């Protein structure tokens, strides 16, 4: 996998509820919930950490198989980016939204 960089869009609403992250896109009002693993990826999406490094953290934290974790992470990015929830780039993303305050 060539490294990708992901950053949370500022055009979303997000909140933790009972261990799951609720996300709603202001672009198309799509509503998502993320499980614990996906939430960990989401919270690490700061635009500066390569996706492979984020997956490495997930493997360590949740004891999942590396292949499975990588496949899941790529699917996660594929599913969320069309809704404007994640911004994806081949280069680090300098986006102020990555530093915005978020209560989880």
């Amino acid at each position: 996998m060539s490294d990708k960089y992901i950053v949370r869009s500022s055009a979303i609403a997000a909140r933790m509820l009972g261990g799951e992250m609720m996300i709603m896109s202001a672009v198309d009002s799509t509503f998502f919930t993320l499980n614990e693993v996906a939430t960990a990826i989401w919270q690490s999406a700061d635009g500066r950490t390569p996706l492979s490094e984020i997956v490495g953290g997930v493997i360590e934290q949740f004891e999942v198989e590396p292949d499975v974790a990588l496949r899941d992470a790529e699917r996660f990015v594929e599913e969320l980016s069309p809704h404007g929830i994640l911004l994806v780039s081949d280069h680090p993303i300098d986006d102020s939204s990555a530093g915005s305050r978020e209560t989880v």
Partner: protein
Amino acid sequence: MSLMQQMNQRAMELGVPLAIHLDVTYRCNERCIHCYLDHDDHGEMSTAEIEDVLDQLAEAGTFFLTLSGGEVLMRRDFFDILEYARRLRFNVRIKTNGVMIRQREAKRMVELGVENIQISIYSHRSEVHDAITKLPGSLKRSVEAIRFLKSQGLKVVIANVLMTANSRDHAGVQALARELGVTYTLDPTITPKMDGDTSILRLRIPSSELNSVFHNPDLVGNVEEFCAPPPPPDEGIMDEYPCSAGHTAGYISPYGDVFPCVQFPLPTGNVRKHKFIDIWRDSPALHEVRSIRAKDLPVCSTCSHVGTCTRCPGLAYMEGSMRGPSTADCEKSFHRTGIPSANMLRKARANSSGPLIQIQPVAI
């Protein structure tokens, strides 16, 4: 069950205030004849106080935040508040009359990722709309605001409150909404003023017109389904909570007062004196609201409409008891289905029964 319903259910189980309505001001540039508010400023929360409340709400798990008033843009710091709320990643909806929204404000709202904007339109005719708002030119300004917001790609909802003054204009407003490409909603509810004054209830549309509204397919969709008689109530229905007010939804006034809902002025605490979460978790008044199930409603639990009625506990509270019936909703259930509510039958019996023995003194 949809994903959203599942999250609502979870919030209910966890006692999370998922949706909060925050009125940032009661001041307004319109003087709508049916408005339930006192528009004088009796000491609104400052920018810093509101930001602190928003921090607390985010911490408590609030996801849906409605910013309303009064007119939100009467506050010079409104965009500071909005920006702060969006930084905390609330899903923000705004209720406004739109009069102060021009291209610049619309652009800022879209930049900040507002979910939708609700704008009150009472009629497609200026002479009717402006007579209700008592602000000359207000229809023109509000419609222009909708166009500005739409041009920025924002989702706009027209809220059409029906009352005697505009009861025949809903088709015109609906056509206007279609032309503007926005969602249309209609509400025939006029509520007492927050201080308990019921004088504005005389503006409610007459029963005959309520009946025609509920049987109009352009307004309710499938009339047969909408007006169907209520199914017999079962045990599950009797165990349900009346509504989300005080369970997953709450209201905060510009002065920091916390209520179960904007239509339910039951004092539960003030965020200037206590942390929001302490009020939410520990208020005896909120505990009482949360303890009430359909089976605990003395009159409504005997009513055939108990499972389908839109009974508002706030309106019931303003009528005298949060466990009592809400007459306005009894009438809605009746005009929707043709079946009188238990409350209506009870009142009819009380009115028709005279004293058993009548004695009239005879002048000799």
